[in-house]
């Protein structure tokens, strides 16, 4: 190798390649994906534990009512609708549309607050507490896991929004904006099975 260093015969010139790349072409995207897979694994095992505990108990939910549907369903609809603005600013981000992304991010923060507020009501109407039965514990654990995701994603959105109103706007920021959107999709996607399990499983498995 040594002498090869002195005078390379042929060279691969990469100076023309882009450095603002999205989705599968961006390193950050793969990083976020990795984190999502890990967190998805945690959710999956938490839900599996829910059903394992159900299989070990002859009454389900044991001696309590299933969680009230109202607030959970409300939050679910917010999650589903939130996809529209998110998808919009995600697409604009790829074209470097600052204004659109600014609006989108502000919306994201507002939606985040809304879901957290409703989530608070959800917790009040779970009809169980974590320390009475294993059922209560697993329900609270699953909800808690999802709340953590809401909180982290919300913080991320706020920070990014600030950046987008600062002189730091550049290619990387738009990549970050896109990541933020896809991470929100992850939060929404994980919520669907959780909603079904927490709110509907007890009604279907009622015994």
């Amino acid at each position: 190798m040594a002498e090869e260093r002195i005078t390379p015969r042929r060279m691969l010139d990469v100076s023309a390649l882009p450095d603002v790349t999205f989705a599968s072409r961006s390193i950050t995207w793969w990083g976020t994906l990795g984190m999502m897979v890990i967190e998805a694994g945690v959710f999956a095992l938490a839900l599996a534990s829910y059903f394992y505990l159900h299989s070990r108990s002859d009454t389900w939910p044991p001696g309590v009512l299933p969680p009230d549907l109202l607030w959970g369903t409300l939050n679910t609809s917010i999650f589903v609708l939130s996809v529209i603005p998110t998808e919009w600013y995600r697409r604009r981000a790829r074209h470097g549309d600052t204004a659109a992304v600014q609006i989108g991010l502000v919306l994201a923060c507002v939606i985040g607050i809304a879901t957290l507020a409703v989530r608070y009501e959800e917790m009040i109407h779970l009809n169980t507490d974590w320390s009475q039965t294993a059922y209560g514990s697993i329900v609270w654990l699953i909800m808690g896991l999802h709340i953590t995701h809401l909180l982290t994603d919300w913080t991320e959105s706020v920070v990014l929004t600030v950046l987008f109103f600062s002189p730091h706007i550049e290619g990387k920021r738009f990549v970050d904006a896109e990541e933020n959107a896809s991470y929100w999709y992850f939060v929404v996607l994980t919520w669907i099975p959780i909603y079904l399990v927490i709110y509907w499983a007890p009604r279907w498995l009622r015994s």
Partner: protein
Amino acid sequence: MNEQRARLIVEDSPSESPQLRAENLARIWAEPIGFWGWFKAVHHTTIGKRYIATSFGFFLAAGLLAGAMRLQLAFPEAHIMGPDLYNQVFTMHGTVMMFLFAVPMMFEALSVYLVPLMVGTRNIAFPRLNAFSYYLFLFGGITLFAFFFVNSGPDRGWFAYVPLSGPDFAPGKRADIWAQLITFTEVSALAVAVEVVVTVFKLRAPGMSLNRIPVFVWGQVVTAFMVIFAMPGVVIASTMLLLDRTGSTQFYNPAVGGDVLLYQHLFWWFGHPEVYIIFIPGTAIVSTIVATFSRRHVFGYMALVLSLIATGFIAFGLWVHHMFATGIPQMSESFFTAASMMIAIPAGTQIFCWIATVATGKVVLRTPMLWVLGFFFIFIIGGMTGIFVASVPVDLQVHDTYFVVAHFHYVLIGGAVFPMFGAFAYWFPKITGKMMSEKLGVWSFWLFAIGFNVTFFPMHILGLRGMPRRVYTYPAGAGWTLLNQIESCGYILLFLGVLLFLINVWRSLRNGPIASSNPWGAGGLEWATDSPPAPYNFLDLPTVNGSEALWDAAPDQPVVVGLHEDVREILTTRLMDAEPEGRDEFPEPSIWPFVAAVVTTALFIGSIFRPIAVSIGAVPLAIALIGWFWPTREESARRRERDIWQKNA
């Protein structure tokens, strides 16, 4: 080579002289100096070396604890240690060896240092996360030993079954310390897993298509995936345990619908893959060393890679074989027996391919090769006893006896420690620029190899004579005394072997002969740069033409040009064929990862005493993370006017 790359090829000679570029790159990629500089370092060789040193330190510590156990067990009804201390010692030994030595050494340490070099890039993906993961690992280990020294070491075994480790039967903080240590190590392992996957997916040298990735890198990628899919199991298990203990939840309390086997299922969902997470990097090392010291490409590249992947998959179908005695239905028992024995097929395939490589090659018996040969003899025996315990009826007899202890030391030490010592001897010149003493190397090998068998072989017999594991002493009349004493003598040989190795390292570092860039005439890219590698790894990023880059290089193998060299810019390539795809800029050194790690540590330890600590700690943690990611004005400005946007985005 496809035309998309052909268009980028230019016939030219470099604009400025290599010396100037080298100096410039060295300045750009240099690690910060001075006291605080130490805490800002982000280059994978720096962090990698720290990982190696730290995890090996933990190996020594846990090895000394093993000595304490061997001393206690050398005499029946001995009172050198009481049950309380002995339980802490064997739990510490197992926990430290598994979570602070085996996984961090075989996976984190080796892949952080070697993978970026082997795929021909300038740093690992997410360098700051990498630094963070190291500090977390370090602090986790320090915490554990700190509590051990104040007589609060975990004492429930390395898998802390409930209810023994639950709120009712494990007073004090010992079990909480254990659970939190697990959190520390899992976070750092997961972080590195993501870094390794992304590094290998996106940062490979042009031309390193999937079928040209070195077997070692394949091994570490498979391991990374196993970490990603297995760790959530122990995350959930240990979290539920902590909540039961500190948050008054009821996950494992049978009285109110909780279940004690839930913990075992969750733990072994992780615990079994864990053992292959330890073993697969070992095989990756073996494949590398066998090829270099047989002077040929490893036999059956495809078969090896497929066996690695197969092992990775099957590993997730075995967890129940640790629970045969819990009385699960016979149908599922049979399934897990079948799966457990099935894993012998990929293992065998690898063994046979290596033997074929050796037999058809020209063997060079240097220290690294010796350790690998040791691996064969030890590991195969361990694997075979694995087949014993895979059979339900046989396992019902030997489960939780010294037969199992023998099994797992044969596979762990044969499958991980022997390859590890081989790897040290093999890559020491690259990492330090010095050669090790062959003479001392051979001596420490034989001491360790003989000592190992003297220590662990009799354990098979003890197990078959009915000696349970995890007993702090045994009756004089049981007929176990002599064998235990033989084992304890074997420990002395092991000790001397390791000690000799340490002496060898120390002497070689001080006045070992200078190592050339490629002393073994090996084929991996890591040997294409100087020993030790410059902070920018490669002056010209290489392109690759085969699985052994240097052996397969075309006479006019092109090199990469056109990256900005006034910033930490690297080249990204496509997942499948590793064709150049884009450029990315890596972050500068920073103190924030260290700060974040300190805060996280405080949060974890605090939560043991007051669950609220999690919420309180979250605030400074958020601040640290923001500082971590916040860009400076000038870099934003610079990038803004240089940005080239991806077409048809």
